[in-house]
């Protein structure tokens, strides 16, 4: 793991209350996040996205990762839980996900996002 990368992650974790990594964010989720993050969440929540995902969020809320950064971060997060401020919303099919509640009608998409960012 490059020292520079872990140093950056440490800075991010210190600076934000929540960091949400959305490697496969749909436009719907990004749109919800945009609505949710208006105003009061400035400097509290950071959304990490893959570089190719142009979600139109400004850089107060969103940071884009290049391919190497994305792989490094995914591998690191999949090695251990290095912070409770950091979470990932993935499409992995080998465990249950909060979006299952949306699919089955237990939560609205807005409630699911609020839960993720709680």
């Amino acid at each position, binding site marked *: 793991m490059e020292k520079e990368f*872990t140093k950056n992650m440490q800075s991010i974790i210190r600076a934000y209350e929540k960091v949400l990594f959305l490697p496969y964010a749909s436009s719907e989720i990004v749109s919800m996040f945009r609505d949710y993050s208006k105003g009061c969440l400035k400097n509290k929540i950071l959304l990490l996205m893959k570089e190719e995902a142009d979600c139109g969020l400004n850089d107060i809320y969103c940071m884009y990762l290049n391919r190497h950064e994305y792989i490094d971060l995914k591998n690191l997060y999949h090695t*251990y839980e290095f912070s409770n401020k950091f979470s990932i919303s993935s499409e992995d099919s080998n465990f249950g996900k909060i979006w299952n509640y949306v699919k089955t009608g237990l939560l609205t998409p807005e*409630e699911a996002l609020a839960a993720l960012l709680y």
Partner: protein
Amino acid sequence: MDKAHYEEMCENLGNMFQNGVFSGKRLYLFGHCNATETLADVLLEKGISVCAILDNNEKKQGSAYRNIPITAPQTILSEVSGSSLVCIAARAYEAMAQQLKNMGYTDSIYKMVEYDSFAEYSLSEETIKRKRERLERGITRFNKLSEKYSGYMKIFCPFNALGDICFTMSYLPYFLAAREIAECVVCVIGQACAQTVRLFGDYPTEIFSQKEMDETIQAVIYTEDKNSFIAHQDRPYVVNLHKALYIKCIPLEQIYCCGVFGLPKGTKPYKPTFCKTYEDMEKIPKGKSVILAPYAKSVTALSNNVWEQIVEYYIERGYKCFTNVAGDEKPLPGTLSVSPKLAEVQPLVEHASTFIGIRSGLCDVLRYADCEKIALYPDYNYCDTKWKAIDMYALEGWENIVVKDGFLWKKN
């Protein structure tokens, strides 16, 4: 607290005594739970006094356990620097230690039990190296498992809890059918969980220690293996289903059905049907016996007085009372002990006619038993949510009773 964690905690305590860690220090515990109560018991037996149990739950603050006050975490900030220490025997050790540091607490914090080997809130080179080695061990074990069960879906049950296994097995057949999976192996911790799996069918099972399970699951997460599934609502850290509880109350049954397995609400759970007759059934008067289950490893115990009232009530009415015990557990006064295997419990309680237990995984095993069933709920909140245990665990077809201070057994 299960035996393995108890032994680990006692070993850590022994080392701390040997190194004089407690000498001249004011001791605090953090997080009022079953494990902390056990830790307090051991410390008190050794003559070590505990200043307070710190807890974030405002409803617990102001009460006490064995005369140890339960107070807000901020209490500890009144201690002079260098004069105190905190011991934590809880799964959320990392978050709790972080909280104390963020509050400005600078003295020593000790992890008494390794409940969560996935978490270490550090990005130091040393931590990353150690966690990579752990991952490598997991990948080696995972590869061996995959070789042994080539072509099988591997279902991982990450925690040693009968209730979790019951929920998993109740919905697993639908999940397998939806993914068109013909064969699976269920990986569990300990014999009791394996026995619980077999109540639902002749599934191949693999038994792991907690450490082995954690490491193997880490390998599943890292490799993103498509032939593996982690069947749990809040373990390991990548599973975010429990976060929904900060927004809405979702009973555990629905968490498993809809959240873990993605099945529609109302999916009919499979029942545990592979039971066996209890060996000593002739010693249990049919229709006039009560099976009491006061012990649970993950739930704070109910006071003796509660059980005394219940035993007295049934004895007065001509019932014979039995306590379900395992290992060193003692039967309640006025009762005889019974130690049925898990496959024998349902036929036993149906023969007896009445089951009364603290709400634990055993109640899930007995969920569909054809007899009078009463679940007792200590008055606590589910994890760090605002929901009570009864909101999460209430059982349909049972009498569900919350036991509060001054509880009186009133039976209709």
